[in-house]
């Protein structure tokens, strides 16, 4: 028979470790029942005070965070970097192509001008008498029997 519950046995009781021997003693001993009741009451009042909603801060309004900020993962970063690289490279590539097109057009124009010049030179070279002297060819007929102009004058 236990005389009274020790401090350890009271604590054991409170955390739920109740042996038949302890239960029998508590049933028979008013002093120990009183001590346990006082401790149980204090813990119960503390629990009630802590759970009183009056002093609890209300929950804040929950807003779903922006997904971009919340899920900036490595694969997404790599994809974003690739997209940025394409965006940056596109104007450069377009400019290079435009420049090449302009060069090609200029070369074509130069080639056309050259061919026109060559044609005109060819046509000039193919004439036996230069164009300004052509009337002389048509108006003056060479006669071998007639005297030389300088001989006539003598």
């Amino acid at each position, binding site marked *: 028979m236990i005389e009274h519950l020790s401090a350890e046995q009271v604590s054991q009781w409170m955390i739920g470790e109740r042996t038949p021997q302890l239960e029998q003693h508590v049933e028979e001993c008013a002093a120990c029942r009183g001590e346990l009741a006082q401790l149980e009451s204090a813990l119960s009042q503390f629990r009630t005070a802590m759970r009183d909603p009056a002093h609890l801060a209300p*929950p804040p309004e*929950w807003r779903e965070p922006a997904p971009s900020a919340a899920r900036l993962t490595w694969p997404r970063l790599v994809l974003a970097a690739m997209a940025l690289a394409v965006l940056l490279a596109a104007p450069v590539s377009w400019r290079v192509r435009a420049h090449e097109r302009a060069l090609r057009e200029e070369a074509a124009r130069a080639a056309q001008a050259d061919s026109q010049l060559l044609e005109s030179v060819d046509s000039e070279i193919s004439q036996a008498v230069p164009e300004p002297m052509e009337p002389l060819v048509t108006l003056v007929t060479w006669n071998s029997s007639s005297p030389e102009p300088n001989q006539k004058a003598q």
Partner: protein
Amino acid sequence: MEPSSAVDWMATAVASSRELDDFESVVRLHWPKVFRFALASLRDRHAAESLAQDCFWKAYRARHSFRGEASVATWLMQIAVNLVRDRARDRRWQFWKRAQATAVDAAAAAAWIRDRGASPEDSALIGEQVRAVWDAARNLSERQRTVFLLRFVEDMDLLEIAAATGLKEGTVKIHLFRAVQAIRERVAK
């Protein structure tokens, strides 16, 4: 594990995971529990509010990794316990705690017990009991206090406390035993 209990476990896990889909409801439902644990641990309203917000923010970010092995409430308390532990080890927090203006003292905690028709004598006695427990809890170690609050304020059983704290059940029992001894000594004075 019996087939039926495996099915039950799966059903519970799926239900717990689905609970996180509506996170606004999760915040509304579990905020009081997380906040009062933070308040009783840190004894500062602003710090408790900040910690509770951190807790839900961490839970939101980790919601896809929640496997439903424990209930959502236990999982949230696990995050809150870790945050309180980190805060207790933060030397800056220890410094500011000494000069805080929003600290909750024992008298304020005792005043939380509102008049429920008790006589002035009974109200005074109840206030004294609450003050004694609040004071005693302050002097507990961080682990003892955590275990004590989870058991006697949040009504969690030893297994749930073990899951929330990451301690073994036997270790939880030892911390709880020492905490109750310290509370008993203060209440009996």
